[in-house]
């Protein structure tokens, strides 16, 4: 950690210019990188009835001996527990499954929407984009609460279906996986639409005209021309949804059932209800390992998009 604190910035730059890099850099090292080192450390500790509720504690006053004693006490026990207990494995599996399926639904819903906006008259486009972004600016909690209003036992969905004669008795919607999928698709839709729209909007319309002039049907032109050009946006949108959904807490907690929980909920329960900090930390470390590949791909895509704009 100390190496990053005293880095040199290029050749002869003024003190002020160095501060521009140093201040945000040190902030992120202190409040983003160091915390993860602590999570890793605590995941190697054991639970204890103490304050804070884990051992061993690093005693810096004891110098080298203290540090050596501390290192000896660290163990992989928490990870062994994590991989031997079906609850945790199932929870990871369930999260990945829910994230994959809801990303798929988001693609099916989001691409036509983005495509439709990109096709709208120019002077309408900014308004349509604003309308897609606007719900994102209202609180996530509010949007989920709106769905609880609709999906509850005597809610509007059941009332409407009963009135239309589609169902004869109220259906249980709330506290099911269906409700979780609805909530996820609803809340993440802007994150899917915007990157896809951004690539479609830059597309040269003459390409499609050329395809049409050469007798290519519309659907085929979409598949052969639009899709490959929009792919970077589609991949970015899918990752922007998939990664946070894997660790999502609020949506499955409020809309989902209690019978099976996603990994974000498991972590929350371990931390807040069971007060088991080492297990909660180990869950976070394993989750991070699962997500590090998609996160790296996402960052790479963002960098490439920036280079193109340059």
């Amino acid at each position, binding site marked *: 950690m100390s190496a990053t604190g005293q880095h040199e910035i290029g050749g002869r730059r003024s003190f002020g210019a160095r501060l521009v890099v140093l201040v945000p850099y040190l902030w992120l090292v202190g409040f983003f990188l160091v915390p993860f080192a602590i999570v890793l450390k605590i995941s190697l500790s054991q639970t204890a009835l103490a304050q804070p509720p884990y051992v061993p504690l690093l005693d810096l006053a004891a110098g080298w001996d203290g540090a050596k004693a501390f290192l000896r006490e660290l163990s992989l026990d928490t990870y062994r527990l994590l991989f031997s207990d079906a609850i945790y494995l199932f929870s990871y599996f369930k999260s990945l499954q829910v994230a994959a399926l809801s990303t798929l639904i988001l693609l099916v819903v989001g691409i036509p929407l983005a495509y439709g906006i990109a096709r709208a008259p120019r002077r309408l486009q900014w308004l349509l984009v604003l*309308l897609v972004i606007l719900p994102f600016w209202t609180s996530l909690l509010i949007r989920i609460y709106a769905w609880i209003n609709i999906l509850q036992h005597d809610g509007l969905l059941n009332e409407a279906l009963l009135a239309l004669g589609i169902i004869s008795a109220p259906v249980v919607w709330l506290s099911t996986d269906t409700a979780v999928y609805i909530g996820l698709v609803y809340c993440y839709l802007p994150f899917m639409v915007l990157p896809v729209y951004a690539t479609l909007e830059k597309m040269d319309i003459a390409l499609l005209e050329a395809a049409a002039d050469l007798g290519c049907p519309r659907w085929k032109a979409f598949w052969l021309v639009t899709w490959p050009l929009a792919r970077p946006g589609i991949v970015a949108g899918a990752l922007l949804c998939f990664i946070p959904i894997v660790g999502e807490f609020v949506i499955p907690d409020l809309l989902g059932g209690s019978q099976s929980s996603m990994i974000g909920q498991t972590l929350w329960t371990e931390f807040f209800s069971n007060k088991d900090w080492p297990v909660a930390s180990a869950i976070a470390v394993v989750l991070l390992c699962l997500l590090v590949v998609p996160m790296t791909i996402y960052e790479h895509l963002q960098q490439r998009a920036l280079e193109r704009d340059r």
Partner: protein
Amino acid sequence: MRRASFFNVVSVALGLAFLYLPIAILVIYSFNASRLVTVWGGWSLHWYAELLNDRAMLDAAWTSLRIALVSASAATLLGTLAALALVRHGRFRGRVLFSGMIYAPLVMPEVITGLALLLLFVSLDLDRGFWTVAIAHTTLTMCFVTVIVQSRLIGFDRSLEEAAMDLGCPPFKTFLTVTLPLIAPAVAAGWMLAFTLSIDDLVIASFTTGPGATTLPIRIYSEVRLGVKPQINAICTVMIALVGIGIVAASLLGKRNAARRERGAALGAQV
């Protein structure tokens, strides 16, 4: 070819209906006189009056507002500096790590960020409350500010800065008088986004808060877990209205500035 097909129109209409119908229903039912959420008992402002007597909810709203103001301002400062560092400083040692730390929080699951920050605060033996939540929100939202300001800095004509410096303007003054006014819209948009994210956050605030610093989302969350109440519809409607007013004001302001810039450019062309 710019003609939208029937399929295009239908998918946009359905998409927007999906996005707005639940919010519209929530707003309408906040004016419901009936205690039962699903039975319509006529129009009434009863639940808004009730809201004004809910001290805990109002206190939470005030706490959230203060945290959002502090953290959005700090995040805008740090995020703008980070964007300048990434765009203007070319290669410096640790750049890969730096840009990694900027992009990771954007997609990092909130439970991980919240847990990590809490464990840091415990290790430092800090009293948890207002300031720990503010620091946590600053760390999260500065990265969003960076991304917004960065894209503005990249599509930016550097010759203006160079001209100022050639005429003997010191670097810091150049930044204040040339660079900052040009990137101001992005900085303002970044501040607004940071403010909204902070007001909205439940998970990270739950981890990093302490006694006496209950934020509005934490308060609403504990109420929502107990079931649907007309009063929550009312507070949600108030929040939606405030956000709506903010967005409309911002876009009108943006439009006016753009118009003024165009007028200025036209005048410049005439001279």
